[in-house]
């Protein structure tokens, strides 16, 4: 069965410090991978998605970046955190193809709660 891991679970970082959040998926190959951010009491905002190694699409301008060095690894990074980067970060994987209409189920990781102080 498929499993998605995220770490760390919680993180407190000072403004201006770097960030690296990691997400890995097990039990599937060539998944679509997604990073979302959820502010308190708000919906999910899609930050990045990837349909393959080295392929990253950014949805919103920001000081975050994403990388996919391996098929089942997705990393969210920042060189200098801002206060506004605080939030609940969720990684997700899915099998939907941008070309073929197939199942678009997405499976979410446990999330990382980031507090920038």
């Amino acid at each position, binding site marked *: 069965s498929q499993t998605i891991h995220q770490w760390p679970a919680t993180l407190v970082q000072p403004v201006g410090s770097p960030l690296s959040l990691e997400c890995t998926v097990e039990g599937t190959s060539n998944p679509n991978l997604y990073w979302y951010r959820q502010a308190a009491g708000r919906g999910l905002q*899609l930050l990045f998605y990837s349909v393959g190694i080295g392929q990253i699409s950014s949805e919103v301008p920001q000081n975050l970046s994403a990388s996919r060095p391996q098929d089942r690894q997705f990393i969210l990074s920042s060189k200098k955190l801002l206060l506004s980067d605080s939030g609940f970060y969720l990684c997700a994987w899915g099998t939907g193809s941008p070309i073929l209409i197939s199942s678009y*189920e997405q499976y979410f990781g446990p999330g990382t709660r980031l507090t920038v102080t």
Partner: protein
Amino acid sequence: GESVGLHLPTLSVQEGDNSIINCAYSNSASDYFIWYKQESGKGPQFIIDIRSNMDKRQGQRVTVLLNKTVKHLSLQIAATQPGDSAVYFCAEINFNKFYFGSGTKLNVKP
């Protein structure tokens, strides 16, 4: 991005009653819709999905209705239980991109 919104931010229901959570979407070209349940401090969990060529789909105690004419989606939960208390999101999918609403918080009163 797309605009997916919810009519009610908070819904309180009595245990055993049916719940109806509504969602409006903006892109008539979206071909797939999903309802998620998110418990406090956890990631969203898939509940049920529906394709744009359907108007109704039933699961276990849940039913999703799609009205493409008015671009409206609803989630019906039968015999609501305390364990159903959570935030519910709808998502529309367009070209492999997911757009989520802000969510409706469902409170189930014993």
